């Protein structure tokens, strides 16, 4: 993924035709989402050879009941016709009905998604606040004790599965020290969740630690690269003190690729949220995904997949856009 970000950096900073580049990315994104809908549709039918009838009517339903249901809902038509119906429904935000929750999928996701976004954004913000200074510190103190301490720490965190990390945090901070609750705040709205911030501490920490480990390494290498650039020497020869050189010259140039990488991080975050939310019983989309997987609620599962696919495409296009804005070579073309 880091490689993907690097490639994008190169492509975007090639300077040329950033608007055309973004236009192309948009078209690519639409194609990717279409392919995902095709896969989702195919999976729906693979998972349920009888069509959704069986899922909704239950295992005891007779063949007559199923046939009647299929006729009523148009599931007896050829598959390609059903696919286009499926597509046109998606286009207006109709993701079908859940088997188990007795409500439309879009409704269920719509209620859960904001809470996941809030958790993800807080985790990301916390991670950046820690990881960026850490990466810069490590780069400046490269090869010295501080660098090794953080590198070792990051490797341990990076190689620990997040469910295990979360469990350790629960045992230490909730069970032993009783500092924070082990369960996330419950509620239907974002406001209800945010009303009890103590409950967010452990989920945020679990999600953020993994991101810190990745981003600080990336920041470290970007800073090391920039520290050896000729412009650093020019700035020092002007009499600029080293801390100012880092703050004023190096950090900005090192941040550009890191910020671009965040866009690519979005889908990874969603994956992480499934683990974190189910671990702390946080009422977000990740938990919805997890419970739907256990109960075989395919429409919900695949609705989530579709949402994640859209988020991935949007994230990577946003990354390119931010990249273009940060680079003076391409900024002019966007203005």
């Amino acid at each position, binding site marked *: 993924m880091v490689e993907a970000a690097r490639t994008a950096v190169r492509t975007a900073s090639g300077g040329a035709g950033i608007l*055309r580049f973004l236009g192309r990315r948009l078209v690519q994104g639409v194609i990717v989402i279409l392919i995902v809908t095709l896969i989702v549709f195919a999976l729906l039918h693979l998972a349920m050879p009888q069509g959704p009838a069986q899922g909704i009517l239950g295992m005891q339903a007779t063949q007559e009941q199923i046939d009647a249901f299929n006729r009523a809902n148009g599931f007896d038509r050829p598959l390609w016709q059903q696919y286009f119906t499926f597509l046109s429904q998606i286009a207006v935000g109709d993701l079908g009905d859940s088997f188990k929750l007795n409500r439309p999928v879009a409704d269920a996701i719509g209620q859960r998604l904001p809470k996941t976004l809030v958790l993800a954004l807080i985790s990301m913000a916390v991670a950046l606040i820690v990881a960026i200074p850490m990466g810069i510190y490590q780069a400046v103190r490269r090869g010295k004790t501080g660098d090794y301490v953080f590198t070792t720490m990051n490797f341990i965190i990076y190689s620990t599965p997040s469910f295990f990390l979360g469990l350790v945090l629960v045992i230490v901070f909730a069970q032993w020290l009783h500092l924070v609750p082990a369960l996330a705040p419950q509620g239907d709205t974002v406001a209800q969740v945010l009303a009890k911030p103590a409950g967010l501490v452990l989920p945020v920490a679990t999600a953020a630690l993994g991101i810190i480990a990745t981003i600080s390494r990336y920041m470290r290498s970007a800073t090391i690269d920039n520290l050896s650039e000729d*412009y650093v020497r*020019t700035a020092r*020869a*002007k009499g600029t003190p080293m801390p100012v050189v880092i703050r004023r010259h190096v950090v*900005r140039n090192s941040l*550009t690729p890191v910020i671009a990488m965040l866009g690519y991080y979005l889908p990874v975050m969603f994956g992480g949220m499934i683990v974190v939310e189910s671990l702390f019983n946080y009422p977000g989309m990740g938990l919805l995904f997890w419970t739907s997987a256990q109960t075989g609620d395919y429409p919900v599962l695949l609705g989530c997949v579709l949402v994640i696919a859209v988020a991935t495409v949007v994230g990577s296009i946003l990354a390119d856009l931010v990249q273009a804005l940060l*680079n003076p070579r391409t900024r002019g*073309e966007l203005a």
Partner: protein
Amino acid sequence: MLRIRDLAVTFRTDDGPVEAVRGIDLDVRRGEVLALVGESGSGKSVTAMAVLSLLPATATRTGSIELDGRELTTLGEHELNGVRGKEISMVFQEPMTALNPSMRIGDQIAEALLNHGVGTKQEAARRAVELLARVGIPEPERRAAGYAHEMSGGQRQRVVIAIALACEPKLIIADEPTTALDVTVQAEILDLIRELAHSSGTSFLLVTHNMGVVADIADRVAVMYRGEMVEHGTAMQVLREPTADYTKRLLDAVPRLPEGGETVPPAGEPEPDGTGPGGVALPVPVLSLRESSVTYRKAGKSFTALDQVSIDIAAGEILGLVGESGSGKSTLGKVALGLAPTSGGELRLFGEKLGRGGLRGRAERRLRGRVGAIFQDPGSSLDPRTTVGEAIAEPLVVHRAVRPMSGRDRAARVRELLEAVELPASYASRFPHELSGGQRQRIGLARAIALEPELIIADEPTSALDVSVQAAVLRVLRELQERMDFACLFISHDLAVVHEFSHRVAVMHEGRIVELGATDDVLLRPQHPYSQRLLASVPVPDPVAQRERRVARLAARSAA
């Protein structure tokens, strides 16, 4: 003013300490330009960096450096920052990367002023614009608000000089300030430095390997060799009557153009157009381009790198191709090698048409196997993980279908090729990093001749090398050419090298060939105004002759 005594610099490396500078003495006087010359590894740049304590952390420095009687080596970082940019400033070799890509030009200049508390932000910004105007940047207000990528290399170097000038320092240390620039741009930058030294009394410590630059600008010269000072004196003395053996050798190795009008038979045997050795008519040129164009698309705009160029190279002929960066000379080489697609025109190799309407696929590859190539950077054009022997054998392996060869024959051929480029056969098992730059370029040469090509495209084969090494590589290339009689497209920005080496010369400018003819005609009696300007810009390593050339060049410029 600047007094360096017994300066020694040692680097800690994995292979033990390396002494880069071994106890040198150096004085720079007020208002003078002192040139510190030497080849790579002589310690000249290290000396320059040592003055402002800008050496990497692995370096240890001993000795004394005084500025107006004040010892600099004992200063702490904070006090050093008061000297850097204020009393002594620096100009570096690589103008393309010396500026921060994401900071406005004006801010980068103003930073130098603000670092030393000279004026308010507004004043510094205004002064930055003045400084840009001072170093000859047109539209300074607009440029100050712009970024480095909008400027050419020469303009960026002017910006770096503006930064160095900002606080009106006593001394500017310039480390190879013109090495990465074209000769015409180099001449302009040197004019600027000379004018600054003259008008503001600033002293310059100029680090360079180019004897022509030294002759053009230096008052005094210090010559370094392997970390030691071998000779110093006035530019007149050192360049005209050198006493140290090393200086003599160095000056002898510098290729020179004979003075204008004077005719010297060029090296090798000049062969008139279209005739081979012995005057037998050879109607078929080995390489023939007819109105070939190459266009690159960038940001929706198209850029013509090669503009309807027509050229023929006869069998056994060496055609020199000169021009500045961006003139299209390397593109022409790439077209000949099939590495750049043409957008129009016709390419023939050995009389066979290639590409659209001609040979393609396997037949084309077979024909291309008869063309060899040598590139500029001997370090990066060899795979660091293959041995020298494997690298040389590679073309033999690739073209084994055309000429089958057993493994033993191949090994024998590699030995033969190594000997042909005057390297011991035992080098076959070595890796590129174990060799020097000159040796690596000979490996490149051995690989290029492995298939006994009838044409070699040599793109700046010696520009990354020191002059003494360059002389040796060129000698090997010439001997091989005489023995194997291949034709050669010799691409170089160094007019003197081209003069020594070529039968005919083509001058390229903005994608076109502006002048083509016998070497002496083009390089000694150029007709086209651009060729004349190019020739006039090349500094010669003789202070007296160079002063005359400079006066003539400036007169021609003000006349025009």
